[in-house]
C-alpha cells in the first residue's frame, strides 16, 4: 500500500515537472516554418521602413504614363527596354509610372482613367480589389533579390507591400473616386511578353491624390 502511494506521488511529481519542463512539443508544421523564417526578418517593419524612407521619396523616378503608353503602342519592344525592366530570365516587363488622369469609369475591378483631355478612352486601370504578387515589390527597381539570403523573406515583403496598398490607398479610391474626378497617381505595372493590347494598363498605385470633379 505504502509503495503504491509512493508510486502515485512520484508519478504526480513527474507529471508536474513535465508540465513545466516538457520533454518534447508538438508544433504544427506551418507554425515551425513560420518561426524559422521570422527569426531574423520582420517583413512588416521592413516594408513600413521601405515604404516611408525609400519608395515615397522616389516617386520622381517614375516614368510618365502617357509617354510610356504612346511608346508601347508605337514600338513595344523598344519601349519595354527604354522604360521598363525585366527580372532575371523572365519575359514580363515591369514599369514604374506616374501621371494624372480623369476618372472615366468606376467598377468592381477598379478606377479607369483617361490621360488625354477630351478623350474618354481608358488608358489606366487602378485596381481596387485584392492584390497579389510581386508587382509593387519589383516594379520600382528599388529592391534587389540578391540582397536577401532567404527568398521567403523577400516574398513575405511582397505580401506586406500589397497589404499597405490595400489598407492605405485603395479604400479612398473605392470611396471617393467618382467619374469626372482628377487623380494623380504613381504606381507599378507588369506587362506579359505576349500582351499586345495593354490598354487600360493595370497600375497598382503606391501614391494617389484625388481632386473633386
Amino acid at each position, binding site marked *: 500500500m505504502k509503495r503504491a502511494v509512493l508510486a502515485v506521488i512520484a508519478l504526480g511529481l513527474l507529471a508536474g515537472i513535465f508540465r513545466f519542463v516538457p520533454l518534447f512539443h508538438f508544433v504544427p508544421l506551418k507554425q515551425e516554418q513560420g518561426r524559422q523564417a521570422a527569426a531574423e526578418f520582420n517583413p512588416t517593419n521592413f516594408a513600413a521602413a521601405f515604404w516611408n524612407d525609400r519608395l515615397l521619396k522616389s516617386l520622381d523616378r517614375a516614368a510618365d504614363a502617357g509617354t510610356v503608353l504612346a511608346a508601347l503602342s508605337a514600338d513595344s519592344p523598344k519601349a519595354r527596354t527604354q522604360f521598363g525592366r525585366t527580372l*532575371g530570365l523572365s519575359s514580363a516587363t515591369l514599369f514604374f509610372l506616374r501621371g494624372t488622369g480623369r476618372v472615366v469609369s468606376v467598377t468592381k475591378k477598379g478606377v479607369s482613367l483617361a490621360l488625354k483631355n477630351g478623350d474618354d478612352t481608358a488608358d489606366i486601370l487602378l485596381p481596387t480589389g*485584392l492584390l497579389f504578387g510581386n508587382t509593387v515589390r519589383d516594379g520600382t527597381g528599388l529592391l534587389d533579390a540578391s540582397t536577401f539570403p532567404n527568398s521567403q523573406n523577400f516574398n513575405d515583403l511582397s505580401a506586406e507591400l500589397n497589404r499597405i496598398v490595400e489598407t492605405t490607398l485603395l479604400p479612398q479610391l473605392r470611396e471617393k473616386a467618382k467619374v469626372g474626378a482628377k487623380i494623380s497617381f504613381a504606381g507599378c505595372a507588369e506587362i506579359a511578353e505576349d500582351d499586345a493590347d495593354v490598354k487600360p494598363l493595370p497600375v497598382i498605385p503606391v501614391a494617389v491624390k484625388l481632386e473633386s470633379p
Partner: protein
Amino acid sequence: MKTHWLKLALAVLVATAAMLFTQNSSAQDATKQKIAVVVSTLNNPWFVVLAETAKARAIELGYDATIFDSQNDTAKEAANFENIIASGYQAILFNPTDANGSVANVQKAKTAGLPVFCIDREINSTNAATAQMLSDSYSGCVKLGEYFVEQVGENGKYVELLGLVGDNNTWNRSKGFHSVVDRYPGLKMVAQQSAEFDRAKGLEVLEAILQKNPDINAVFCGNDAMAMGAYQALVAAGKDKQVKVFGFDGADDVVKLIAEGKITATGMQFPKKMARQAAEFADQYLHGKRDFPQKIPVAVELVTQENVGKYGDYGRKH
C-alpha cells in the same frame, strides 16, 4: 623488294601517326576541364531533365561533365562535394537538397576555389554560391492560386501536399498559393501534409487523407510528381472526375494529363532553360567573368487546359 620496303615505311609511318594522335588526344583529355552536376535526386523525371540538360550543355561547351546524385540526403551531398573537390573539377552546377543544410557544402567548394552555380533551388546565403538561378516559385503559385479560385470557386474544401520542409521552394510555393486562397474564407484547407516531392508518397498521403476527407474539391501539390501520385490516388478512389488537381513544375506527364483534361493546371518552371544557363555561366566564369548577379529569378508560367498547346518538353514549344 622495293615494294616491300615501301610497304614497311608506310606501316611505320601509319603506326607513328597513330601513336602521336593517341598521345595527343590523351593529352587533350587530361587537360579537358571538368564540370560536376550535383542534383538533389534522380528519382524524379524533372530533376533528371535538369541534370541531363546541364551535363549536355557543359559537354557542348567543351567540358567533361559528370552527374552526382545526392538522393535528397545532405550527407550524400556533402560526400559528393568532398569527392568533387578532391577529383580536380573546375566548377559545380548545383541543385541543392536543403536551403540551410547545403550552405556548408557550397562554402567548402568556394574555399577550394570552385565556383558553384545553384539551379532551381536556393541556399540561404548570398556569399557562398557564385550565382543562383531560381524559379520564381512564389509568383508562380500566386498565378496558380488565382486560377485555383477561378476553377474551384470561392467555396470548397481542399488538401495541400507540401514538398521537402527544408527546401525554400516548398514554402515559397505554399505561401504564394495561400497569399491568394486564404483571402477567400469559403475555401477550407482540410489537410496539409508533406509528401516530400515524391510521387509514391503523394499517392500514399492522399489515400490516407481521403479516408477522413472523402468530400474534398481540390488538391494543391507543391510539385508535379506529387500531383501525379495524388491523381493516381483519386483514380483509385473513383474521385478523379470530382476533385481538381493542381501541380507545379511543368513535368511532361502532367502537361499531357492537362491536355487530356485530367489535371487542372501546373506552373511551368523551364528546367532546361535554367540548366543551360547555369552551364553557360560556369563556362563564362572559367573564361574570366566574375560579375554575376547573386540571384537570378526565372519566371514561372501557368499551364492550363486553355493554353496547354503552347507547352511541352519541359518548356514552351517553339
